[in-house]
């Protein structure tokens, strides 16, 4: 592969050798740019002497049934999935082109390798010659191309469009007008040849804009590779390339999978059991061994899971969070000193302990997470009540300020975090009245209230949320934040592939967020699941994906 190696891989190797980037970042970016994961691990090991993870442990127990508590929604249209539950079911039957592991490294799956041109606009994917369908025949580039086109078809309504629109699609006018007289727009491939099947095992994507995260996008949960003959519909007996076939499906009740004898894996069967939305039923089912694991733990039940002698808790820090954001166009938050005072008055570590039982990590008020590859570590910004008082006094608020913060009651940790912070702010003379709105009401006003506590989900790269939420004029800029220097740095970061250089730019962005930015951010959440100790091979994924072929269970 060395002759087609992306030119940046050489730079990455250099940086790893000089220890200017970490092992994890090297692995992540080298594999993203097409270096095979084994080769990347091998190179990294030569440099730092680490050990590559064992592929499949031979000593895992064989056979048995694993039952996992998880909602079982309808599964008929995989490319429109919007929850992790449904994809977890179909994932046992159908595969993805790539697979991003719990370590955030993207590895080959149905595509066995890939290369990218130096301008990041031509991606060549080679199909895995060993990948076969249950019903016979090889998985080919034509199959992959059909699936990509199906996902990008606006009539299908897949969320893949949101990911790939920028580099694969263009807007077109349908010529129709809606009720209000506005043009009805739709999308189509930006170029008729954007998805090219070069030969049965080679797929080439031609992008209209450079994009570094194409392999990661192929692991987006609805991006399952279905048999084109089934026309995007998944049902009992559907074809697939994975280890399992579906044997039972009762929406809202259960869904069962049986492993095909000669395919990888340990267990004979994998069952998903729907116990509804009530987390206490799920916890009680695990306690009485009616299920062997749960899809996701609820933070209120954390101590219950911890108290069960027969289970292990598996957790992983993510970039999921919520931020107390202040609208920079409304008083008193139009004064940057007031915004910084709110940050200084916040005790992140304590808020994490109180609101999220310490499950996660304290944040630093800049909305870039330590799990991001391009995160830059700034000196700590500890709580400083005197500093906050002084800032307020200098800004003309000698007697402190009276403000109102809006939040929603579920998930419950959000309200708890707001209550904890409001208590902390009091000491600095920031008297916040808490206004708890029902979720649906909250989502009607989340962008417009002067002060609110808004949740933000995990995005794979550090600059992505900054671009969504704090760039001047973008739709989700709920704090009306506008800072020319910030915008320019952000654009520079987006155009920088080199992770080290980008993390330095992010360092500057983070500093602006801390000094001038519109948010106080207390914590990063961990996601966690609880599994019976008899379950082996489970490795919690930040997105809670479950891979049945990795799991094994000891006999009771």
């Amino acid at each position, binding site marked *: 592969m060395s002759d087609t190696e992306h030119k940046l891989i050489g730079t990455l190797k250099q940086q790893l050798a000089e220890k200017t980037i970490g092992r994890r970042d090297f692995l992540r970016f080298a594999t993203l740019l097409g270096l095979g994961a084994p080769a990347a691990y091998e190179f990294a090991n030569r440099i730092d002497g680490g050990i590559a993870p064992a592929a499949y442990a031979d000593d895992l127990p064989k056979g048995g049934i694993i039952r996992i508590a998880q909602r079982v929604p*309808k599964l008929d249209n995989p490319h429109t999935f*919007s929850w992790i539950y449904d994809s977890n079911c179909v994932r046992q039957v159908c595969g993805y082109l790539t697979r991003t592991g719990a370590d955030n490294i993207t590895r080959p799956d149905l595509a066995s390798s890939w290369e990218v041109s130096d301008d990041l606009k031509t991606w060549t994917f080679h199909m895995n010659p060993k990948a076969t369908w249950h019903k016979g025949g090889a998985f080919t580039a034509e199959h992959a191309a059909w699936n990509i086109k199906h996902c990008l078809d606006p*009539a299908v309504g897949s*969320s893949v469009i949101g990911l790939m629109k920028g580099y694969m699609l263009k807007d077109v006018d349908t010529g129709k007008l809606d009720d209000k007289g506005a043009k009805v727009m739709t999308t189509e491939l930006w170029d008729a040849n954007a998805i090219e099947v070069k030969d049965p095992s080679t797929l080439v994507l031609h992008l209209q804009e450079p994009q570094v995260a194409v392999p990661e996008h192929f692991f987006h949960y609805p991006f399952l590779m279905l048999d084109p003959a089934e026309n995007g519909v998944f049902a009992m007996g559907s074809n697939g390339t994975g280890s399992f076939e579906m044997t039972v499906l009762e929406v*809202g009740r*259960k869904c069962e999978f049986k492993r095909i004898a000669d395919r990888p894996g340990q267990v004979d069967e994998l069952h998903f059991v729907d*116990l*509804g939305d*009530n987390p206490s039923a799920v916890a009680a089912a695990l306690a009485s061994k009616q299920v062997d694991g749960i899809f996701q733990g609820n933070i209120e039940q954390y101590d219950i899971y911890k108290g069960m002698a027969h289970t292990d808790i598996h957790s992983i820090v993510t970039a999921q969070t919520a931020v107390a954001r202040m609208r920079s166009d409304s008083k008193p938050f139009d004064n940057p000193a007031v915004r910084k005072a709110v940050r200084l008055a916040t005790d992140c570590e304590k808020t994490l302990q109180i609101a999220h039982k310490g499950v996660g990590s304290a944040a630093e008020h800049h909305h870039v997470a330590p799990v991001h590859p391009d995160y830059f570590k700034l000196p700590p910004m500890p709580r400083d009540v005197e500093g906050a008082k002084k800032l307020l006094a200098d800004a003309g608020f000698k007697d402190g300020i009276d403000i109102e913060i809006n939040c929603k009651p579920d998930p419950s940790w959000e309200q708890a975090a707001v209550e904890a912070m409001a208590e902390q702010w009091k000491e600095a003379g920031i008297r916040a009245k808490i206004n708890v709105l029902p979720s649906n009401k909250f989502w009607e006003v989340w962008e417009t209230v002067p002060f609110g506590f808004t949740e933000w989900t995990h995005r794979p790269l550090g600059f992505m949320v900054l671009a969504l939420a704090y760039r001047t004029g973008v739709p989700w800029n709920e704090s009306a934040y506008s800072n020319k220097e910030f915008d320019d740095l952000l654009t520079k970061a987006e155009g920088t592939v080199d992770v080290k250089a980008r993390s330095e730019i992010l360092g500057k962005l983070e500093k602006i967020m801390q000094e001038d930015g519109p948010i106080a951010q207390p914590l990063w959440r961990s996601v966690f699941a609880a599994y019976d100790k008899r379950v082996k091979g489970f490795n919690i994924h930040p997105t809670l994906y479950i891979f049945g072929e990795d799991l094994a269970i000891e006999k009771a």
Partner: protein
Amino acid sequence: MLAIAARRLVSMLLIMFVISVLLFLFFEGDKLNLAARVLGPYSPMTGRLAWLEHNGYNRPLITRYLAWIYGFMRGDWNQSAQFDAPVFDFLLPRLKNTAILGACVFVLTVAISLVLGVFSGIAEASKRDRAITVISVLTTSVPEFASATFLVAIFVYWLDWLPGSSSFNNGFSWREMILPVATLVIYNFGYYTRMTRASMAEVMNSQYIRTAVLKGLPYHQVIIRHALRNALIAPFTVMILQLNYLLSGVVVTEVFFAYDGYGKALYDAAMFGDVYLILAGAMIAVVVAVVSQFISDVGYTQLNPRIRFS
């Protein structure tokens, strides 16, 4: 008798009509949200509009309503958007599960409360009466979710005797019935007991009982032959009316134990805005409510010789 049955039938149809119209209107404004829930929070607007069009939600309200009524009469209750199944096929096994739960609860509650109520009522203000009264008031005032939590804490987490969820995933199981039945019986028996006690106490003070006792009849014969029948009229009516509660009041308990019944299905449907499932659930609730009222009326006249249909 026929007249009252006809009157009930008419009022039932009227209630069903009003409720279905209200539900239809209520969910009319929620159409786009339903599409968003089916297709997911990140689905593009074009996809949602296409889904509404494709599934017939864009036809005029009146057309859809008439189509729904026509289908409903013929047993075609439309498709559940959430569960991807015909509403009728989806609800039937769940109604059966709730019927099993309701029957167990009803039989146990009636047995317990009649015994306790009679023992309490025949000796008003005795220590036994006071003890039973305190227990009844206490258990009735603890809501289901609280007593369910207590029961699970004791029998699942601490003693490890009973399964903590009741989804019948490996078929019907009596062991999985115990906790949900216990929760509902605990919540309900106090109310019935109090009703029976009040009625019994009143009868015991009446002159014909005094006459019977003075006549020298054995005490148990006075209770069983003379007091019981008259004392049961009021509690009977209340208990039959409570049948309705056993259908629509079990939501909390079913959701708590993941009991796969009518209540949990209705809860899921309401959270999702699954309009046809909610409609069908509401219609069934109306039928059960009106029928139980009718049974209660008829039974009342049978038990009470002073009232007879002319």
